[in-house]
C-alpha cells in the first residue's frame, strides 16, 4: 500500500453521492466502497464521514432507511434521491471541467502560444 492521498477539500460529499448512487449502503459500506474504488489510495477521516452523511440527508440529497446488514444486523442504509442524482450529475460535470482546465494549465510546457 503506497502513501494514501488526502481528500481534497469539499470532495467528500461528491464521493458519498457517487458511492450510494451505485446502490444503497450503510455508513461503513460507504467508507469501504470509496476506498475500494480508489484502490485504497484515498484516506477518509472516519470522524468526518457521518457529519457529511447527515448534512446530505438534511439537504434531501440522500435518504436513509433501517435495514438488515450482510451479517444480519440492523443498520441504516443510505440511498440517492432524485435531487441527489441531479446534484451528482452537476457536480461531476463541474469536476470534469475543472479537472480539464487545471490539467491543461499544468500540462503546458512551452512559453509560446
Amino acid at each position: 500500500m503506497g502513501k494514501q492521498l488526502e481528500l481534497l477539500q469539499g470532495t467528500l460529499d461528491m464521493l458519498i453521492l457517487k458511492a450510494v448512487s451505485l446502490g444503497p449502503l450503510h455508513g461503513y459500506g460507504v467508507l469501504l466502497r470509496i476506498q475500494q474504488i480508489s484502490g485504497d489510495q484515498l484516506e477518509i477521516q472516519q470522524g468526518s464521514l457521518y457529519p457529511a452523511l447527515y448534512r446530505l440527508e438534511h439537504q434531501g440529497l440522500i435518504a436513509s432507511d433501517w435495514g438488515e446488514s450482510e451479517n444480519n444486523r440492523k443498520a441504516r442504509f443510505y440511498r440517492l434521491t432524485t435531487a441527489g442524482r441531479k446534484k451528482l450529475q452537476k457536480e461531476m460535470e463541474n469536476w470534469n471541467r475543472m479537472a480539464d482546465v487545471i490539467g491543461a494549465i499544468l500540462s503546458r510546457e512551452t512559453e509560446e502560444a
Partner: protein
Amino acid sequence: MRLTAPFRSWWKALAHRREMEAEVEAELQFHVERYAEDMMRNGMSREEALRHARVELGSIAVQQEKNRFSRGLRPWDDLQADVRYAFRQLRHAPAFTITVLLVLTLGIGANAAMFSIIDATLLHWLPYRQPSQLVSLYLLDDHRDISWAYYQDLKEWQRRSQRLQEIAYYDAFEGFLETKSGQEQVSAQSVSSNIFSVLGVQPERGRTFLASEQTSGNNKVIILSEPVWRIMLHADPDVVGKTVRLNDQPYTVVAIMPLGFAFPANDHDPQVWVPAELTPAHQKPTLDWSAPRYQVIGRLRSGATPSAAGAELSGIEGRLVSQYPEEMKAELPPARAGAMPYRETLVKDSRTALLALIAAVSIMWLIACANVANLMLARGMARQREIAVRGALGASRWRVVRQLFTESLILSALGSAAGLALSQLALGIFDRTLRTQLNLPGRLVPNPAVLGALLALSVVSAVLCGLFPAWLAARAPLEHSLRQSTMQAGGGRTRQRLQQAMVISEIGLSLVLLVACGLLLRTVFALRRVPLGFRTDHVLMLQPKLPRYKYRNIDTNRTAYQPLLQRVQALPGVSSATITTLLPLRKGFGAVLTLNVQTDKKSTAPPVQIDAQLKAAGPELQDILGLRMVRGRFFSQQDTPDSQLVAVVNRTFEKLYMPAGDVMNYGIGLGKGRLAKIVGVIDDFHQTSIDRPAFPEIDFCGPQLRATDGVYQPTLLAHVEIAMRTQTGPEQLVPALRRTMLEVNPDLQAGEIQTMEQVVEDSMGNQLLAAHLLEVFAGSALLVALAGLYGLLAYLVAQRTREMGIRIALGAQRHKIIEMLLGQAGRLLLAGAAMGIVLSYAAARLIASFLYGVKPHDVGTMLAVTALLLACGLAAAYVPARRASRVDPLEALRTE
C-alpha cells in the same frame, strides 16, 4: 421534495431528539463493530480492535454534536443552552433578579399604559382615506377663539380655494330613532351631500347623498351607521329603500356605512346622517348673526399644508368681510379663518397633557434602564471570574456576550409581561378619569400596535441595559481576572466611571419628574384654594334633557321645567330649589349680550362696549350658592311678574360700567317698553373655570320674564338647570329626584344629576389627572433612582471591605469612614441634582400651560424637591456606609 427535506429533518431533530440520538448511537455502534471485525480479521485482538475503531471515529458525544451541527441546529442548541443557563443564573441571584424585574416592570408598565392611551388618542386610527389630508376649517373671532363658519363663507371657500380639493360641512342635532323598542337616541348629523366623498369612504351598501337631496322636499333620506343598523334595526338585510322614522319624520334609508366608520370620529354613540337642508336662510344675500353656521372639514390637495390653507381661506375671508354688515365687521380681526389637521381637533385639549406624560414615562423608562444596566454591570463584575473561566475553556467573546445578552433579554421579556399586566391594572384604576378627560371609547385593551410597541420596548430595554455591560464584561483580559480573587477584582476605572455616570443621570432625571410633580401639586393646591365665590357643599344640580324635536315650538320652561321645579321644591330634604340658566363651572350654553354704553352724553369718546353673559334665575339662587352681595339686593319673593322688572350685575360688570357712571342708575331695555332696573351687584365668582377670571354678567329674575321678552329665548328657552340646596348629603336625594322626574314627565328621564363638588372636581380634571399620574411616575422614579444609588454604594462598600478592614485596623475612626462614604454619595447626589435642575428648567416649559398660581421656574419648588432628593439619597447611602464602618478588621482580612 428538496425544500421539505430540511424541515423534516429539523422536525425530527427537535421533536424526537431522543429517538434521533438513539439512531445515531446505533449507527455508530454498528460502524465500530464492523470496523473492529475487519481489523480482527487482520489478527488484532478484539479489545484492541474496538479501541482502535472508537478512537478513529471519535467520541459518540462529539459525533452527536456534529450530527446536530450538520443539520444546522447549532444556533438553536446554543440558544437553548443560553436560556437554560440564564434561568439558572437568575435563580441563583434572587435579590438581583427581583430588583431588576421590579424596576423593569415599573418602567415598561408605565410606558405600556401610556402607549395604549397615545394609541387611542394621538395616533387614533381614523376610518377615512388618507386622514392626514383632512383638515377642520373654522373662523377665528377677535379673542382668537374658534367658531363655526357661516354658510356664505364656506360657499365662497368652496368656490375659490386652490389648496383644498373639496370642502364639506356638518352640524349635529339630537335624534330619536323609532325602533321596535321605542324611541332610541342616536347621534344625528346633518351633512353636506359631498361629505362621504371628502372623507373618501364608500357605503357598505347603498349610495351616498345626491346634491339635489339638500333641497327641501328631497331631503328626507338617511344613511345609517353599522351599529344603528345592526343593533337598533336588528340587521334587517333589506333596510336600504325602507322608511325609518327619525324625530317623528319619515326618512328613506339610502345606505349603510361599513363597520368601524364614524363621523365625527370622537363621537362614540350610534350615528346617523341626513342631508343638510338648504333653506331660504341659506340663500339670503346679506349676512347676520343668525345666518346658518356649520362645522367644516376639507381635504387638502397633495403638498398643501394646513397653515397654507388657513392663510388662503383668510385671504378669501378678508374679501368677504367687506360684505359683512357694520356691526359684524367690528368683531373681525384681519386674519380670520384657520385650518387644523382634523386629527388634532379630536385631541386638542389633551394634546399637551399627553405629550408631557409621554415625556414623563420616557424619562422613567430611561431611569429604569440606567438602573438595570448598573445592576448588570455590578453583577458582571462579580461574575468576572466565571466569565474568565468560560473564556479559558474556549468560549468566544461573542459567545459570552450572547450569553449575557440572553440573560438581559429574558429579564426584560419577563419585565414586559409583568409591565403589561401592571398597565392593564393602572388603566383599569384610571378608567373613569381617562374616559371623561380624554373621551376614550370605553375600556382600552392592548391591540397589536400596542403589543408590538411593547415588544420593541423590551428588546430596546434589553439592549440598553444588557448589551453594554455584557460587552464590557467579555472584554476584560482573561488572565487578569483569573489570577485575582473576586473580592479583589476592583474593576476597571472605566466601569466605575460608567456606573457613577449612570447613577448621576438617574438622580438628575428623577429630579425632573419630581419638579414637574411638585409644580402640578402646587397647581392643584392653588386651584383648591381659589375662593370660588359660591358654596359647593349640599348643592345638587339637575340638568333636565328633553328630546328637542318633540318640544320644538313649546315653551319647555312653562310646560316641563316649572312643574318639575315645584315637585322638587316639595321634596323632603330639599331646602330650596330654583331654575337657573347658567351654573358656575358648567361648560353649558351661554348667551352673551354686547352692550354699547354711552359714557357721557356730552363727550365724543366712543361708547364702552361690554360683552356680558346673560342669566335668568330665581331668588333662591342666592341661598343655594351662597352668593355675596357687594351692594344692593338680590331677587326676592316680592319680585313677581307684575312688579317692577329687576336685574343684578356682577362686580366685573360694575367695574367696566364705571366710566358711564353708577350702574345702579342703569336700566336694561327688554323691548316693548319693558325696562329692568338694576337693584344689586353680586360679588364675582368663577363662571367658566377656576383658572379664568370672572366674566361680566347680567342676571334677570326668572319668574318675572315673559315669553315675549327679548332675553327669554337665549336664557330660559335655551338651557335650563335646576339647582337645589339639600339638608342631608346631596347624593341621598338622587333616587328620589329620578323618581320625581319620571313622574312629572317620562321624557325627562335622561336628565343628569351631579353634586356641585363633582362639578368643581371635573373642572380641575386635566390638572388633577396629570398630577395624579405624575405623582405615580415621580414616586416610582424616585424609588428606582434611590435603589440604584443604594445598590451602587452597597456594592462599592462590599468591594472595599478589605480596604475598610485595613483602615480600621490602622486606627481609622468609624465615623470618619461613614463620613467618607457619605461624602462620595453626596458628590454623586449633587452632580445629579445639578444636572436635574438644568433639565427641569427646560422641561418645566412643557407643562407651563397646566400651571396655575405657580411659575414654571418656581425656586421654592425646585429647592424643596432638591432637598427631598438629597435627603432621601443620603438616607439610602447611610445604610451601606454604616455597614462599612462596622467591618471587623480581623474578619475582613481573613476572608481573603
